[in-house]
């Protein structure tokens, strides 16, 4: 078996070697249409968040939530660097306080053909819509859906490698990256705090993420992914392993002026004893919007929308931990308006009611965002 493995590996390396050395004819036209270049892009968003709690307190905050610079350099059509640096909350304060400076992406991309590419560096696993596509004009609501925080911990990034491409009309991607920190998984926030974020990450238990997405049908995107990680943890001073599996399905359909988007996901923990008795977290959301822009004579998008969001980071628990299910059960109704004078600029307003653990808060959010 070892010999077969070695032969397979050698054959693969030989093929890749042949590929990288494969020279296209030096056609003047091809050279004209591609020149090595450096480009920048980015996005940002300013938010106003007001909360009226059931207990009678009221808060209102202004926050420049994210300022992101995207940098790319292409050495050739196949070889490029892509990097993204993000400043959160406008100021970097000591660890544990507000604000963060994060290197969310920094990888070398080898784009051999539309069917196959290879990336290595700080990368994003392909999980749901927002982990890879989270620029403000691309989603309804000032804040990202709670689902994209509690079930899928966007933005989820880390050190790793991936292969990607399109086969038979399906976009595929396989990611092998740093795993989760088992000591930080909790009933309240799921795997969100367990992300290692590329900081001298423990590489002994890599996470495997496999995704597939259908984009061939105009106005329809359907995708799914599975992420598996044998997460190291300790219990009573003894080492344990907890298999954590995140599965999700996402659909976006935009027939005519309608937009319908839904995501559904579940995290399962093999060893619930390591998560205070929680064996599953579940959530979903559904958006419905209608673009009134053309009817209103507006040169851009004018989209009123509604959303229903349900999340429970302790959806399934042992009998001893049954109280956690009620404490972490969240439902959130929202309605809002999205105004896009340009595809890359958005003004947002939304209002909603969020219920959790017997309390209901009313929330008003205003925002402006951009991408380029």
């Amino acid at each position, binding site marked *: 078996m070892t010999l077969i493995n070695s032969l*397979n590996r050698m*054959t693969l390396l030989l093929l890749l070697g042949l590929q990288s050395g494969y020279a296209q004819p030096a056609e003047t036209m091809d050279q004209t249409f591609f020149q090595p270049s450096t480009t920048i892009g980015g996005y940002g968003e300013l938010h106003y968040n007001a909360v009226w709690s059931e207990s009678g307190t009221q808060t209102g905050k202004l926050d420049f939530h994210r300022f992101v610079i995207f940098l790319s350099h292409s050495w050739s059509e196949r070889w490029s660097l892509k990097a993204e640096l993000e400043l959160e909350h406008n100021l970097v304060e000591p660890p544990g306080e507000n604000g963060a400076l994060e290197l969310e992406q920094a990888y070398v991309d080898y*784009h051999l053909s539309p069917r196959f590419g290879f990336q290595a560096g700080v990368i994003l696993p392909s999980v749901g819509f927002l982990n890879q596509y989270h620029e403000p*004009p691309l989603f309804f609501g000032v804040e990202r859906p709670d689902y994209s925080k509690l079930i899928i911990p966007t933005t989820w990034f880390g050190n790793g490698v991936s292969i990607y491409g399109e086969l038979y009309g399906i976009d595929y991607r396989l990611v092998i990256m740093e795993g989760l920190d088992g000591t930080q998984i909790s009933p309240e926030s799921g795997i969100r705090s367990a992300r290692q974020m590329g900081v001298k990450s423990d590489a002994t238990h890599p996470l495997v993420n496999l995704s597939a997405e259908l984009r061939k049908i105009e106005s329809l*995107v359907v995708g799914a992914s599975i992420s598996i990680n044998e997460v190291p943890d300790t219990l009573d001073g003894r080492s344990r392993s907890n298999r954590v599996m995140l599965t999700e399905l996402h659909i976006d359909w935009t027939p005519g002026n309608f937009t319908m988007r839904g995501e559904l996901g579940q995290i399962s923990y093999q060893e619930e004893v390591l998560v205070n008795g929680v064996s599953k977290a579940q959530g979903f959301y559904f958006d419905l919007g209608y673009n009134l822009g053309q009817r209103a004579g507006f040169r*851009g998008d004018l989209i009123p929308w509604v959303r229903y969001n349900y999340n429970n980071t302790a959806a399934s628990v042992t009998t001893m931990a049954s109280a956690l299910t009620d404490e972490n059960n969240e439902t959130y109704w929202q309605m809002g308006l999205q105004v896009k004078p340009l*595809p890359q600029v958005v003004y947002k307003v939304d209002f909603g009611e969020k219920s959790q653990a017997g309390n209901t808060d009313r929330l008003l959010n205003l925002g402006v965002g951009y991408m380029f």
Partner: protein
Amino acid sequence: MRKPALHRVLLIIGLFTITSRHLTAGIQAEAEAVIQSVFNKEHHIIQFDPLALSPAERHQAETKTGQRFILDQIYLWIIYDSTALAGIAVLDNVRGKAQPITYLVVYTPDLVVKQVHIIKYREQIGGAVQNQRWLGQFSGYRDQANETLSLGGAIDGITGATISADAITRGVARMTAYLNALNFNEIIHRAEK
């Protein structure tokens, strides 16, 4: 058992990509294959050398559509049938998120868009702009004095491909505005110089 399975998958992908037409076909060959497919076989295709952009018309088209030309020239094919001009095809670049996108616009002699094709897409994301049904929205477009194409207006957006879709929408509008400013006879005249 899992590791050999992974190797086999990688091996198949490696073999598959080595046979990919994208490795061997140059931009010119790709473009001419598309032009052949748009017109029937009795048509004669003549490719001219790169046509330098005319500064005044270039500025006019860029101002109108809010997008600059990346290249200083365009590649032009003129298609004749047995008796008359059947159309023209123009190859150009627009800037995607990080890489250039090479696209071809085929026009009737009246400078109405007949078809748009993506000849080379170089990015991991946003590849849905190559969908021929989405590109079909450009068919029938002609330049108008006070109007231009916009994403979200006459052209539908694409989830996960906003920057690429906007770039191509503006690119088609920009090219059409430029050619219209020259007019067809002027294009032929310049090309034959």
